[in-house]
């Protein structure tokens, strides 16, 4: 399993705009490179990232071979209610990883 780092404020006021940052460890092999004996290195990238907040999708991104290793996303959402923010990365070779954090909204 890849390592992922999530930065979400643990507490927020209702209606406040919060910043979410995610970083995941992934090589993002483009599929355009060759090894030292000329053999093509197959593509191995994350293709999709989705963030849901209490089940509601708040952010989605499609990823392509030009995106660097260890993709980093930062985005904003409005703190609506206490609950769970879930992150899901999917990609080549059946890559799939889910992480979640809790947030308290007062």
């Amino acid at each position, binding site marked *: 399993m890849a*390592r992922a*780092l*999530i*930065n979400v404020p643990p507490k927020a006021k209702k209606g406040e705009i919060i910043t979410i*940052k995610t*970083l995941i*460890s992934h*090589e993002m092999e483009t599929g355009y490179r060759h090894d030292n004996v000329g053999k093509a290195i197959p593509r191995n990238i994350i293709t999709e990232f989705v963030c849901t907040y209490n089940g509601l999708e708040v952010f989605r991104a499609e990823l392509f071979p030009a995106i660097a*290793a*260890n993709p980093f996303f930062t985005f904003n959402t409005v703190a609506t209610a206490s609950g769970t923010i879930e992150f899901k990365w999917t990609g080549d070779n059946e890559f799939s990883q889910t992480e979640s954090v809790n947030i308290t909204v007062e």
Partner: protein
Amino acid sequence: MTPSERCILVVGALACAIASTLLIVRAAEIPLNERKSGYEFMGRDSRAMQDDDTANPGTFSVLDGEALWKRKVGTAGKSCADCHGEASESMKGVAARYPAFNAARGRPVNLDQQINICRAERQQATPLPLEGKDLLALNAYVARQSRGMPINVTIDERTRPFFEAGRATFYRRQGQLNFACAQCHDDNWKEKLAGSPITQAHPTGYPLYRLEWQSVGSLQRRLRNCISGMRVDNYPPGAPELVDLELFLMWRARGMPIETPAVRP
């Protein structure tokens, strides 16, 4: 030859003489209070990446290193922690002192080499490959414990010959371009090379995450990059010449805080 042609020749010869005199004049070392870490040459976004551990991909290497620190390996069945305990205590300031003199080898060794010496002698395990993920991770984890601490290598009668060899490498013109490290990093650090700032080459944050590499890498990897750019017949990874150069560079950056894991473009 007409008098005017002769005049042009004389002027040309004089200009050449002056230019060559200027070329051999070496600028002084950078004054201590004018030294800057590579961090200060970076843009806002790269700095933000380094400043926030959750945005810094070097953190992955540190976390991997933490896991390896606790893992029992080798026929001795020992982990690093079995001898050294909590790295946050025992490894504090250690990376700031490396390369350090190793009495058994009679020369300074860098942190990568020290980790492999520990593996071979105390854990009775196979040495980790240089520039491999595991060695970089252990090094990053150990060096992370010195973050913020001043670089403080020991130059004494035992290390001085190696230190002087490193200094000589830094100031020696070499390779097809007939370049010395100092020509960029002492004399022209206020300038740019192909649009990028030339830095002062202070190794404050190794192992570091380099965006160009899209991975963590060692100081030796960086040195070998520069050296091949100078079109010098390169030193192999782990070469004593590179360790001597590391020792000189760490002395040159003495007192500057460790930033590991740093981020660089």
